[in-house]
């Protein structure tokens, strides 16, 4: 459990650094898509690992995943 929290934290920081670095590259659909995808992955990691949603009923897990993917998709569709 403790090790999972540590691994999640490292993944979150790495994704943040990669996301910020990628934003300095010339704008393209793939860059935008990747930045959004990384944001959604981070969103789900925080929910599942830090908020311990992985132990909760599937309803709460599904709601968080659907929300993250929905917002990410809307960002991508409107801003690609």
């Amino acid at each position, binding site marked *: 459990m403790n090790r999972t929290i540590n691994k999640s934290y490292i993944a*979150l920081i790495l994704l943040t650094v990669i996301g910020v670095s990628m934003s300095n590259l010339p704008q393209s659909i793939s860059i935008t898509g990747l*930045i*959004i995808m990384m944001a959604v992955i981070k969103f789900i990691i925080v929910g599942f690992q*830090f*908020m311990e949603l992985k*132990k909760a*009923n599937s309803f709460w897990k599904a709601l968080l995943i659907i929300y993250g993917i929905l*917002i990410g998709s*809307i960002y991508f569709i409107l801003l690609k």
Partner: protein
Amino acid sequence: MSIATQKSISNPPGGLLIWIVIYLELLTYGIAFIGLAYYGSVNRADFHNDSLLLNRTIGGINTVLLLSSGFLVAKGVFAFKLKELTKTSRYFSWAMLLGLGFLTLKGFEYYDKIMAGISMDYSSFYIFYWLLTAFHWVHVLVGIVILFFIRRSIIKKQYQANLMDIEAGAAFWHMCDLIWLLLFPILYLIF
């Protein structure tokens, strides 16, 4: 708590009430995120130019501060379950400190923008920027106050401190992370 109880729909970590609050907050922010993305798609060039006035490095550091703080709160909850109260208290203290760091850095950013004449009436982008980030700033402040009271409760009540209260407070804090994780890319990185 048995696994069956934990898996019950009415018993998510921290209790049902905090999760209703979290999803209502996410719903409210979600509507604003969609509004921001929509207006950004209509006025892409203006939003792009306005977004360039934001400092991505400061935004990135703030993200790291919030994530690190959330990490320490998660560690604190874990330590409390192991009855390691001194560790729990220490984790929460550091989490609050990083939260204050976030507020301070954001405060510098706000000061910088105000001094440059970039207020809410500067552009559509900055209406969203000020409303969303200021609302989030207040949430982080409330989160720090909650963490303070949780920590105090742990110090006072020791082992009698209620795990569900601690998890609920932690969930509120993580909610600030969740909101920021979707707010940061659209304001600072994508346009």
